[in-house]
């Protein structure tokens, strides 16, 4: 009979030591906007299925914005940009604390005040609610496996909202999930946080604007951490959680 204990002893350490490493060159990552001047060809705008990109002529040339809260990372823009203004970004440190910070631009903005630190610096217990994007659920589950091992940061997923400090939402929240989601939030003790994981949770993504009003969680609850991507990489999800804890990664 095969010996499970021998297998465990000889498997060795599987956990990645480096936290939130860059993705390898083979991976596509998310698009990013660079300082390289836009040629104004509008191919990116035409190819984007999410209306996530705007081009506006201004005194310096053309101002480009790209909303990662809408972007599904299909890379139609990066493949068609002749000027290097929109390129692939292989960073996994893609989570942000405000919705505005998801909108990338080639023009400098006034840097908004950093959001208040949250009280959960050493441990964070999370209730996950899925509302229609099961691949993001799979990446949340992956963050708990021995390779990513989110538990090493004091982060645990719990069964009841009563035990939870944070509500992690995936999916676009159609009409029939609105009440269960809000009741789950109501059942949580304060202070409590909300995390939106995946483009569909942030804005509804591909489902936005339909009769099911599946436009994401951002309009329903106060979100403190936004993790873009369709789906986000497990390291990006962990980045979004560590940001809430004010931890350097």
């Amino acid at each position: 009979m095969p010996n499970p204990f021998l297998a465990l002893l000889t498997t060795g350490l599987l956990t990645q030591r480096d936290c939130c490493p860059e993705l390898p060159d083979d991976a596509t990552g998310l698009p990013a906007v660079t300082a390289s001047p836009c040629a104004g060809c509008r191919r990116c705008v035409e190819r984007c299925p999410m209306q996530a990109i705007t081009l506006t002529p201004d005194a310096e040339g053309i101002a480009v914005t790209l909303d990662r809260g809408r972007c599904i990372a299909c890379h139609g823009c990066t493949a068609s940009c002749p000027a290097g203004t929109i390129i692939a970004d292989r960073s996994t440190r893609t989570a942000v604390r405000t919705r505005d910070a998801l909108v990338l631009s080639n023009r400098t903005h006034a840097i908004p005040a950093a959001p208040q630190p949250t009280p959960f610096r050493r441990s964070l217990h999370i209730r996950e609610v899925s509302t229609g994007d099961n691949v993001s659920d799979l990446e949340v589950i992956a963050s708990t496996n021995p390779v990513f091992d989110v538990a090493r940061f004091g982060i645990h997923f719990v069964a009841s909202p009563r035990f939870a400090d944070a509500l992690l939402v995936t999916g676009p929240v159609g009409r029939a999930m609105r009440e269960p989601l809000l009741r789950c939030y109501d059942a949580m003790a304060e202070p409590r946080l909300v995390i939106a994981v995946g483009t569909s949770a942030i804005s509804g993504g591909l489902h936005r604007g339909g009769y099911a009003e599946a436009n994401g969680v951002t309009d329903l609850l106060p979100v403190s951490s936004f993790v873009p991507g369709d789906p986000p990489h497990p390291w990006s999800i962990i980045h979004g959680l560590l940001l809430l804890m004010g931890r350097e990664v």
Partner: protein
Amino acid sequence: MSLTLAPTTPFECLPVAPEHLPELARQRFKQPDWRFGHLIARAQQDHILIETLLLQPAQGRGVILSAELLAGVREYPAITPHVPAAHWAERAVGDMFGVRAVGHPRWKSILLHHDAWPLDLTPLLPDAGTSREPYTFFKVKGEGIHEIPVGPIHAGIIEPGHFRFSCLGEVITNLEIRLGYQHRGVERRLCEIPWQQAHFLAESASSDTAAGNALAHARAIEQLLDITPPPRAVALRTIALELERLSNHIGDIGALSGDIGYSVGASLFPPLRGAVLALCQLLTGTRRQRWFIVPGGVARDLDDGRRTAMVQGLAELTQRLRKHIPLVIEHPGVIERMEGTGRLSPGLARDFGIVGPAGRASGSRYDVRATFDRDALPFTPAHREAGDVLSRAQIRVEEIFAAIGIIDAQLAQLPDSPIAVDLAGAVLPAERAGIGLVEAWRGELLHWITTDETGAIARYAIKDPSFNNWTGLAIAIRGNLVADFPLCNKSFNLSYSGNDL
């Protein structure tokens, strides 16, 4: 009858009178080599069509019985009394079109919840002029029967759905599964956006089956356009589809271990799944193979360096799997726990049209890869008769190694050709139907696209394998302990969002 099927669609369309529909469906369904495919409605200008797809897999063909209702008529005789497998499809037509299947033994709403949507909303037929009844649960009566409501939000990281158990002590006498919480209006939205961009949303119907959904969509569109993807694209698509099967089956072996408290399996298999996802990333650029398969071909080529890396990675993975799978599947404690649990008999599996690994664990030999799939190599589907959790696990193990064999063969002799047909300027033909069939990792997945007189998509129907198989879970759990539900559920591992659409 203005509709024609695309020339490469292996089905024929047969106009029938609505009153003859149940009998004509029954005549075919009672023959062992026929099975139920799907049932949809379509709105014409002033009337409704009920289209029933019946499949004869061994011959690689099928028939669509197309019943035209008179103008203003909102009912037809149900086929469910003769073809039980149609029971959810007929209810879905009721919700989305307000058309009633008269004689349906469990007639009630299925997708649109009365507390979330107006009762007269029929998303695919504006102003149907009908109204649904509020939902009621089936009531098991008798001394000592008690109910356990579970969900929509479950304890783990999993999709929402409601399970209503009627129990006698610890034994489940009936399980009613109520889904629809994640209804996002996918089918209507797919008719509202330009077809050139529809593949993004079609792929996200159940986003954990990206390769399967994207391939079914691509096949339907390619039938409509009457084009054939280049051989290299066909090979790369096959690799993507089998990688998806591999990663999910491996993940499920780990999750089954977790559900019986066998932590060795639960901790060893997720990293193995991660190794498959690394291969996916090499092939497609993302772990979950997003936006890779597109109508006409694939979006990115596999260069020689990455191909070599994939061959090496696959060989290492195979070695680890050969070492680790016996730790689970041959462990006496695991076998003891899974054997005889959650049994689904071959007879009921056939009646309710159970597909995929769950169907093949309960006596079915149906696998799209061995029948309708013209891209596949010669292939013998896995097959067992016991229909219990152990059989479903064993089928997955066999399919894991079969998938590795297929990927290996494709990587070894990748054809040299372009990777896509250029679809710039392509126009969909008017009043045609194309049906894409794929053996996704959960089973038969179907995208059924019909165009209108301008060539725009007028009806887009998706049938996820879970739509067949949820009933299989409800049957399999009868007579089992409440505590065995998580294990049975995981052995099916169905999609909620693919069902809810």
